């Protein structure tokens, strides 16, 4: 059933990325363990906020995933268990129960999302584009050095205050500039993996397929601010060089799950 068919408003689709699928699966409550301790993923609240609203609106078929995303999420769980076995020497009985529990939560999340097929030829075409986009962004990160930030800060300070006060203003400008370019810095520290590129290539494939049917606004819900979602700050400012480039190149809007919730309500 197409979402909002007949209306002039583009339909809304949300791809639930691996980090959100995992975020909503790592949780164990006191009731289950007869203890007051609650252990959860740092992104549990924001991830479940989105999953809950998608569950309530399941008939609108807004939330989607691909087989690659599901495989990556299951692989993440399996791999974490492997690390616990090898590094932490955890008890296999406990790990089996943990894997069962988290896998169960993950499967219940996947059940309320639509699994979309991916045309591998189209995906391959987009993989090249995605690779090029990230390569250019990584090139751009080379320009964000301490020296360039300092000279930009000095230039800004020139326009703000008289020479007498510049030495007080420059450090503040450096801090602001570092923050505004934070997403690029994070990308440099944590370059995209093949699976990150695959996620974006599949999202671009879906956007192309959706747009052929009807105007569509496609969001990628992600807890990953190095490769997808903007880096947001408490004062309302943000760093979004990567996010903006993704939207310009592929028409995909990446954002944190809690921000996408407001669009569905």
């Amino acid at each position: 059933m197409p979402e909002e068919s007949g209306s002039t408003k583009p339909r809304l689709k949300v791809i639930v990325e691996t980090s959100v699928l995992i975020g909503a699966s790592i949780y164990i409550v006191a009731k289950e363990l007869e203890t007051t301790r609650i252990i959860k993923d740092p992104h549990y609240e924001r991830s479940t906020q989105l999953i809950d609203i998608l569950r309530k609106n399941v008939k609108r078929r807004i939330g989607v995933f691909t087989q690659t995303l599901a495989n990556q999420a299951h692989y993440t769980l399996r791999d974490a268990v492997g690390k616990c076995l090898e590094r932490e020497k955890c008890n296999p009985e406990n790990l089996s129960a943990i894997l069962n529990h988290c896998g169960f939560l993950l499967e219940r999340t996947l059940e309320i999302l639509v699994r979309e097929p991916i045309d591998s030829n189209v995906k391959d075409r987009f993989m090249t584009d995605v690779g090029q986009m990230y390569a250019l962004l990584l090139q751009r990160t080379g320009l964000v050095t301490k020296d360039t930030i300092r000279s930009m800060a000095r230039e800004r300070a020139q326009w703000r205050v008289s020479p007498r006060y510049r030495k007080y203003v420059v450090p503040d400008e450096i801090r602001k500039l570092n923050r505004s370019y934070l997403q690029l810095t994070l990308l440099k520290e944590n370059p995209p993996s093949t699976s990150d590129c695959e996620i974006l290539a599949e999202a671009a494939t879906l956007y192309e397929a959706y747009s052929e049917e009807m105007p569509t606004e496609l969001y990628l819900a992600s807890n990953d601010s190095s490769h997808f979602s903007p880096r947001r700050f408490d004062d309302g400012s943000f760093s979004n060089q990567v996010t903006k480039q993704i939207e310009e190149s592929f028409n995909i809007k990446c954002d944190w799950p809690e921000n996408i919730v407001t669009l569905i309500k």
Partner: protein
Amino acid sequence: MGVTGSIFPIGLNELASISSLVKNMVDEEKIDKTVITPLSKLLSVAKEREAFWKDCKKISARNAFMMYHAWRNLRLIISKMITRFTEAEQHHENPTTANDSLRLLPSLLHTYTFLLELGERELSVDEHKRLYDQITILRNSAFHTGMLPLLEEEMKELDKKAMVVEFGKFARGIRFDKTTSKGNS
């Protein structure tokens, strides 16, 4: 006991017997408690294999764990099936239990025969993934047929405090983004 022992043919015979009894129950719309005998034998096989793989050092730790995990899940699900058949009349689940079992049997059989095929050798990356996927299919099928033990039931046999500590270690091993969406202002 290894894969070449007599236990595996017994397991297969029991599965065939369970399938035939369950089909009859569905046709006749009546629970036949004789199914509990082959189910209990199958349960013993799963228990023995689970114990074998728990401390097995013959193959890599990750692969031994996946084999252990698969047999443990088989054991948990078969135990739940036995409980359902035992309590079917009491809970007025006659013939629902038989219908549910019939729906579960294909994935149970598939998992069992796949484990049989894997034996006690090292698994390839593909086999490791296929086994995990098969466990997921089995557990989903068990969930939708009411044959999956609740977490509380599963936890009864575990040390809960140790479980909490190890859940923490597991959760810490998963980090996509070490910081939150909000940076320092």
